[in-house]
């Protein structure tokens, strides 16, 4: 059987580094939507938060829905509707001291208030985005079909910010 190469949404895209900010694609691994039949189920994250369990993270993504990123589904299928989303999303990381300033131009939420372990479902320009606060910056999840657009929007802002800081 031929060996198919699974290409990530931004396959071959080199990281962008400018004025203390680094934008790069991240491999999210397995992404699974967990939609509990009863929202009061234990272990389900509170709104706008992430429950971490080793390498696996359960990220709140909306009313009655969380994304399990980078971990096995385990027992969730017994208490929730579980769907594989792995190929539907693109992951980006935006790290560095200026990351919050970059996102401030595209995301209508005050991201200075997010600490590690927090997340927000909001918009990046006109796109839907899940913002996860991580050490040193943010991880962003956008629809796979929007990956290039998201990169373009972010890269434009990063370059403009770099240019302004330089003059």
């Amino acid at each position, binding site marked *: 059987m031929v060996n198919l190469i699974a290409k990530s949404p931004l396959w071959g895209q080199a990281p962008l580094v400018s004025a203390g900010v680094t934008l790069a694609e991240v491999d999210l691994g397995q992404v699974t939507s967990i939609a509990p*039949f*009863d929202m009061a189920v234990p272990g389900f994250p509170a*709104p*706008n938060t992430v429950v971490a369990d080793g390498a696996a993270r359960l990220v709140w993504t*909306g*009313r009655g829905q969380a994304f399990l990123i980078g971990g096995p589904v385990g027992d969730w299928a017994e208490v929730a509707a579980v769907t594989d989303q792995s190929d539907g999303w693109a992951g980006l990381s935006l790290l560095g001291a200026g990351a919050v300033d970059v996102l401030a131009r595209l995301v209508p*939420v005050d991201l200075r208030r997010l600490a590690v372990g927090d997340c927000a479902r*909001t*918009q990046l320009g006109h796109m*839907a985005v899940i913002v996860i606060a991580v050490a040193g910056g943010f991880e962003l999840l956008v629809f796979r079909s929007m990956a290039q657009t998201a990169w373009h929007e972010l890269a434009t802002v990063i370059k403009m910010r770099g240019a302004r800081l330089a003059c």
Partner: protein
Amino acid sequence: MRITCPLCGPRDRREFYYYGSEDYLTQPALGDFDAIDAHLHLRDNLAGEVRDLWYHEMGCAAWLLVTRNTVTHKISDVVQVAGGGVGILAKMKPEEGAL
């Protein structure tokens, strides 16, 4: 204008989709054409405090019942239509007290 989503917190108006007056929450009986007409078309259309339905489209996807002043755009209350319940029926009939 900013709307404080009970789940997501204070958010910009652009994240929300406006549907219309709370009249949409009253399901008319099938065959009652006056009630259906009122449900779909007729509005009090008040200049002042109203309650209308918004959807947190770019956020958590919750339907919200927003108490808002149409003259000042001041928002005084926001609750989830589903009031903790799930499913379309809970959306159609907000629980007593949730209002």
